[in-house]
């Protein structure tokens, strides 16, 4: 999607290894979000950010950490990947409250 890029698009990693996913935006939007999408669970919020160095937990934050040192970048880290973290991860951005989100194209992560 224009203005928001996720990297990598696909990754296979081994259990116990650290993994970092990157979300980069060029829209200068304040709010950024990380979701995971799994069959039977839909989209679930992991962490979100409402500004540089301001982050908070979502409903499925265990095992994940985030950082936002610049407006344009929001990083999601799995400190020690587990098979239960195999999923498709989406980043989203929004300008302000009561605006729809713009989603990235997703990162498919497989933990073996």
């Amino acid at each position: 999607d224009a203005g928001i890029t996720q990297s990598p698009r696909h990754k296979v990693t081994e259990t116990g290894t650290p993994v970092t996913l990157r979300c980069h935006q060029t829209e200068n939007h304040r709010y950024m979000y990380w979701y995971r999408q799994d069959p039977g669970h839909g989209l679930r919020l992991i962490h979100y950010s409402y500004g540089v160095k301001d982050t908070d937990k979502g409903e499925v934050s265990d095992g994940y950490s985030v950082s936002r040192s610049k407006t344009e970048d929001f990083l999601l880290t799995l400190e020690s990947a587990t098979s239960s973290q195999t999923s498709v991860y989406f980043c989203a951005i929004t300008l302000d409250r009561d605006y729809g989100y713009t989603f990235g194209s997703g990162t498919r992560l497989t933990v073996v």
Partner: protein
Amino acid sequence: GESVGLHLPTLSVQEGDNSIINCAYSNSASDYFIWYKQESGKGPQFIIDIRSNMDKRQGQRVTVLLNKTVKHLSLQIAATQPGDSAVYFCAENISNAGNMLTFGGGTRLMVKP
């Protein structure tokens, strides 16, 4: 790669017919609602939104209806086309509780030529 639920409710319609996708939302305090479309291998795409002070909003070929009494939201797609085949999600938000959308489970729309 497809990444949405394997057992989603599915609506199958004939090309050219109208489609109606329904969503029951959970929180009576929700005041902002959005419909998203997700095609295989892509991120969700914004279709249309509606605020709780309205009960109907129209876009290009799409209409969203909101019934706050029964906490129900619907998306109507006129003259459905093959390109409309996708999974559709509704999402709700409570404005004064932060900007965090809660997503429904989704409905798969299949358009038969």
